[in-house]
């Protein structure tokens, strides 16, 4: 009686081996399908180019996607609630120029630009969330507005010019290394773990899925849907700010044109990683794999010296193929 589930499972009384086996395969495939796609890509690449499977190159790849990867985590949560966030790229730009302007050597403590950057990101997210939740308008429009306006603010603030001359403490968040591992990678992993725990182990996470799964039911279950939506968008803004500041430090300059098209890459990483745009489905792990797929693709095509034009063509085809293969695995028998 300890295990009522087995006991109740009278439907599977035909539990022959073949049956269970089929089940397992399909479960594994659906859970790890996109991971398999990533592995296949990596193996293929390592045959095509010797340079691919070196520590340095792999570190490069992960560092390159760590910025988009971090943004994509917030975007994943937003998409799980059936929302979307088009503003990430512009928020990155705004955070970049403002935080850079407070990060000149010898002016302020390192905490000033960091805090200001985080606040701007969080505020932008908060506004996105509030307009979407309280204003009852599509997230697409709310965040599109932010996308346009935040870029304008970034340009206005910087007068369209880059802001160089950053303190070495600030530069560390983009260029530093700890035990040989680039700082952005460390942040990527830490934020991945935090976001994963938030989504899978906390009330916040369960509510996120519930809101995406059935918003009406969520309300009836006593979830303050508006409040959680605002929280989720704010978190997404915060992650964009982190990525924005690290990227600024990485290239040693605050730039109002930074993060162009980032939103699209971030959404793509989430969707490739299995997040459903119809809501209720998605994981941080999947998104991280999605981001890695994009990274390996970019890196691989560069390593192979494929020309820019062909790179684009192949990139389009490979992204679609990766998701197609994954979808095929999910398919019901």
């Amino acid at each position, binding site marked *: *009686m300890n*295990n*009522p*589930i087995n*006991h*109740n*499972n*009278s*439907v*599977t*009384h*035909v539990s022959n081996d073949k*049956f269970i086996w*089929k*089940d397992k395969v*399909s*479960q594994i495939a659906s859970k790890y399908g996109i991971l398999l796609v990533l592995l296949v890509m990596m193996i293929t690449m390592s045959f095509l180019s010797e340079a691919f499977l070196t520590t340095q190159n792999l570190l490069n790849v992960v560092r390159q996607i760590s910025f988009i990867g971090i943004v994509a985590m917030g975007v994943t949560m937003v998409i799980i609630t059936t929302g979307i966030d088009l503003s990430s790229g512009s928020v990155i730009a705004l955070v970049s120029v403002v935080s850079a302007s407070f990060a000149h050597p010898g002016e302020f403590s390192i905490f000033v630009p960091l805090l200001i950057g985080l606040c701007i990101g969080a505020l932008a997210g908060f506004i996105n969330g509030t307009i979407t939740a309280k204003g009852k308008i599509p997230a697409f429009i709310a965040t599109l507005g932010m996308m346009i306006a935040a870029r304008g603010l970034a340009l206005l603030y910087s007068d369209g010019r880059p802001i160089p001359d950053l303190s070495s403490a600030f530069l560390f968040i983009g260029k530093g290394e700890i035990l040989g591992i680039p700082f952005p990678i460390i942040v990527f992993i830490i934020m991945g773990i935090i976001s994963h*725990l938030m989504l899978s*182990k*906390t*009330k916040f996470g*369960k*509510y996120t*899925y*519930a809101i*995406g*799964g*059935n918003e*009406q*039911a*969520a*309300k*009836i*279950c*006593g*979830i*303050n849907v508006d409040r959680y939506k605002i929280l989720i968008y704010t978190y997404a803004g915060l992650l964009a700010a982190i990525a924005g500041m690290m990227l600024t430090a990485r290239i040693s300059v605050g730039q109002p044109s930074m993060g162009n098209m980032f939103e699209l890459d971030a959404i793509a990483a989430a969707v490739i990683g299995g997040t*459903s745009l119809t*809501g*209720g*489905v998605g994981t941080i792990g999947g998104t991280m794999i999605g981001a890695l797929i994009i990274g390996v693709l970019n890196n691989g095509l560069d390593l192979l010296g494929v020309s820019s034009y062909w790179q684009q063509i192949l990139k389009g085809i490979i992204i679609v193929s990766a998701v197609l293969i994954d979808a095929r695995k999910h398919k*019901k*028998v």
Partner: protein
Amino acid sequence: MSENYILEMENVTKEFPGVKALDSIQFKVKKGSVHALMGENGAGKSTLMKIIFGIYTPDTGMIKFKGHDLKVSSTKEALKNGISMIHQELSPVPHMTVAENIFLGREPTKGKFGWVNNKKMIEDAKDLFKTLNIDLDPNSKMKDLSIANMQMVEIATAVSYDADLIIMDEPTSAITEKEVEKLFEIINSLNAKGVSIIYISHKMDEIFRICDEITVFRDGQYIGTKETTELTQDTLIQMMVGREIKQVFHKEKAEIKEVILAVSNLSKEGKFDNISFEVRKGEIVGISGLMGSGRTEVIESIFGIDPPDSGDIFIHGEKVKIKTPQDAIKLKVALLTEDRKLSGAFLPISIKENMIISSIDQFLERGYINKKLVDEACNEQVEQLNIKTPSTDQLIMNLSGGNQQKVLLARWLLNDPDILILDEPTRGVDVGAKSEIHKLMSKLAQKGTAILMISSEMPEVLGMSDRVIVMHEGNKKGELNREEANQEKILEMAYS
């Protein structure tokens, strides 16, 4: 003898990942008969119907329709062959009109460009409703209808195909006695025209009133086919459940104590007017009334989904303000809504998560959800409510309707409410499970929970309630004690 049968199925098997829904079953329907298909939740009834209608393809098996081998790979072919179906799960296109929904896929056209003839479509729909004695405007948007009316539209749609075989998968789960009578009239007239009908329902009295033959499935297996006259309710239940279930309503005596919930002069413009009643500790109060009488609206108001314009709510004698469901939940009120798909289940999410969502705080440990606590609590519910599933990690989407209902009930039980409001708690639930839910209601009442139950099933209202409130067009028509309540009195009040 083959020509006597319109449909013959043999050795049909269908597996889903982890579930053998049908295990080489057989099923035969005589021409011009009303054939009941019975079985507990998850027995495989809907699965078999979906196979006949071309939604699923069977893994193995032979199907003959009108004496010929039937190979349907799409619903289009099924419709062409003369089979139509009322689906268990309502499936409206919400933003289209009633007429557009009815004629979807076979719109009348005019002119050489093939414009859709909207006028004719509306006229045809009106005619259809007239012959079926349904009072609905074909121009209204589907999303604006009550579930009951959506159900009537589905019935009308299925009938309008002029099919030789109509499958009715729980057509009465969302409608009240009045509409059930209409449906039975429709079935009788179809029968007179020689149309065969497969009828699925968990309501015993319906089966015995209109069905000629009954086939029973249990856990995906064929148990037998009998003439209705050969069976009694008890023997039928025994076939279905495999054991004897004697008493259908487990109304146990509970000590009725002080008033927990009192509402006075609750009104909402256009919805209901001046509603007052009380519910006591340990008491089960039923609300009866016709479809659209405003029962659901009243309890949704109390629960803060759509707060009332005026009137007061008292809990434990204290006046309370309930503006949102959160307020209600804090006051230990729970509400099982009537439409599990729209406002109940989180379809893409697991059973487990569906269960704990509104009582999540009790599973938190230092901010994290304790998996062990969750599993224990969920497994206990699965056992107590006899929910059929291989695992609580299964998506609720993949459960049969009745089992979904039980999961949602479990969600609110985990909240340990003082006041439990149930809107059609046994909709689509099989006899066995129904009696378990009833038992549970009795047990909760004995423990001191106050239960307010809306039900369109007269036997359930009469069998379970200590008191019955009857509503009509947004007004409370009266209250009857358990002793004085009977079907005639309630109906009289409900129709007045």
